[in-house]
């Protein structure tokens, strides 16, 4: 099986959810008692210092992006009484360097980079989460249909996926953008979703196929549960762990994809701020003022690294068996 890093990072065995839930599920209709498992995973996660630190930095970054643009206009947080609008052009302030007024300096147009990085982060992170969400929705629908029906349908659906897998992801996203004909938030989300939903579909299918063979699914079938009940009650809830990990496995790819596209001028375009378009802005003058390029890039790198660590930590927490070898 061809593996990419998202697949490779996932546990091959089903997470412990199946085993835990099976004990409590004597009758098909009983509520799925999963609290103990999740609490267990939570404790295991907390023991992983790198993952906890990554989660903290991740949350801080998201909060920074959400809060700063609003509060930045309230005077007095830093020494100045001036309001900094992330899009306000003031050539007298161009490239002023690091100061208390401008903690992350300013760009060519004198726009405050502290505020602009936050606003750009909103777009980058929002595209990241939106595309990840759609990737997982498509992945769950496609993967569970394929895995659940099995046989010829599964074979055909997987072969189709194999063919799509051959399409290199960046050209595919670029062509999608050209079809949509605009390069805004929605277009970027759609393009990145279309270019990268395959892995999620494979992951869900693999998970559904493994779970399908479990005794509690057979038991549910034996007592006459309908297919949709088995799917909704027994299979999908047990893929939840994998899906939560998948959020943090897909997110880096999408954030980097946005940055790539914007950087080569085919994604979000300046003056709209996203981390990618800010990097594109910074490219012009980076020999004299490298900070304008480095700041958005460091923001991207930090976010991606945190997401990777969070995904690792979650995988270890939800499936302790892989912990030693990971």
């Amino acid at each position, binding site marked *: *099986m061809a593996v990419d890093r998202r697949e490779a990072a996932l546990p091959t065995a089903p997470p412990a959810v199946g085993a835990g839930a099976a004990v409590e599920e004597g009758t098909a209709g009983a509520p799925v008692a999963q609290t103990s498992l999740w609490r267990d995973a939570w404790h295991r996660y907390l023991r992983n210092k790198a993952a906890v630190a990554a989660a903290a930095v991740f949350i801080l970054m998201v909060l920074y992006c959400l809060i700063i643009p609003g509060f930045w206009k309230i005077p007095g947080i830093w020494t100045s009484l001036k309001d900094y609008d992330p899009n306000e052009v003031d050539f007298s302030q161009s490239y002023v360097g690091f100061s208390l007024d401008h903690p992350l300096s300013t760009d060519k147009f004198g726009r405050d980079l502290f505020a602009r990085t936050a606003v750009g982060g909103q777009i980058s992170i929002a595209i990241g989460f939106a595309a990840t969400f759609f990737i997982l929705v498509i992945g769950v629908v496609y993967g569970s249909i394929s895995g659940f029906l099995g046989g010829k349908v599964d074979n055909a659906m997987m072969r189709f996926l194999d063919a799509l897998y051959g399409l*290199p992801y*960046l050209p595919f996203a670029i*062509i999608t953008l*050209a079809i949509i004909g605009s390069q805004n938030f929605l277009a970027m989300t759609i393009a990145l979703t279309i270019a990268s939903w395959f892995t999620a579909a494979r992951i869900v299918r693999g998970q559904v196929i493994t779970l399908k063979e479990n005794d509690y699914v057979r038991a549910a079938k034996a007592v006459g549960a309908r297919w949709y009940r088995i799917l909704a009650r027994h299979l999908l809830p047990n893929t939840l762990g994998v899906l939560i990990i998948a959020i943090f496995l897909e997110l880096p790819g999408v954030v980097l994809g946005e940055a*790539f596209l914007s950087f080569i001028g085919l994604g979000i375009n300046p003056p709209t701020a996203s981390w990618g378009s800010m990097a594109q802005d910074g490219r012009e003058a980076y020999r004299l003022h*490298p900070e304008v390029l480095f700041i958005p890039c460091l923001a991207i790198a930090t976010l991606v690294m945190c997401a990777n660590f969070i995904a690792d930590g979650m995988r270890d927490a939800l499936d302790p068996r892989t912990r030693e070898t990971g």
Partner: protein
Amino acid sequence: MTTFIIRRVVWTIPVILLVILMTFLMMKQIKGNPFRHTERNVPASIQRNLERKFHLDRPWYVQYAYYVKGVFTLDLGPSMSQRSRTVNDIVRDGFPRSLKLGLLAYLWAIVFGVPAGILAALRPNSIFDYFAMLFSSIGFALPSFFVATLLIYYVSVRAGLVPTSGWPASFWSFDSRVILPSFALGLFPMAYFARLVRGAMLETMQQDYVRTAKAKGLRYRRVIGLHVLRNSLIPAVTATAPLLGLIITGTFVIEFIFSIPGIGRYFINSVSNRDYSVVLGITVLTSIIIVIANLFVDIMYGVLDPRTREAR
């Protein structure tokens, strides 16, 4: 084994047809016509003739058939905006440069990534392991354009060690200009290989047959060399195909930054010029390369690990 290979090879043909179809249909959806976007006022009769020349007046499936025929006879058609050149010319120009860039990036990954992974696995939780994995996490997270600009800024501009851009003219000539682009592109695969090999080795070392080998008194080197290394390099071979997609994506950006006239640069220019045939040609070409790489990896996998042959 032979049946497995034949079945696998035959199977790639419909896959390639489907990939061409998907790309082709997507290209058809793009609004705008390359001939309607010129400043000059093109007379209607010339417009019609041009459309006839490129079969644009025929239904899509006829166009598709023409195109597939072209691909299989290695003729990707004329470029629509550079009238005197064909897509073949552009591919012949740009592809060797991109191929060289990609191969050199792989070389970085294999020469540094694989040994780093092996050494880290031999001494898990040592200082070396810690630094190798930290380095690998960083290599995973840094966007390649950032690595590239960092290198240009510090190595080329500040230290003045190598030129900031450019690429040797011929495929077999090498000079200092190839170092930075290939390293910037190779950093991700390097980090990936290091992590992958380390994980695979740690897993293999816990296998029963390794314990047996140790128990029967085999020397450490022989256990590692014969039993552990052989089995844990399989994932590195399998990872080659999916990595190829990432490397191709990377070349687009790296060529853009270092002004390397490879296919990635042509692709980006062609998207803005609405040069359908170049965009289509390059996408189809890279897709076919990936499909063939997948085929190769599957066969290799079948050779290296006989258990997988039956399953497919």
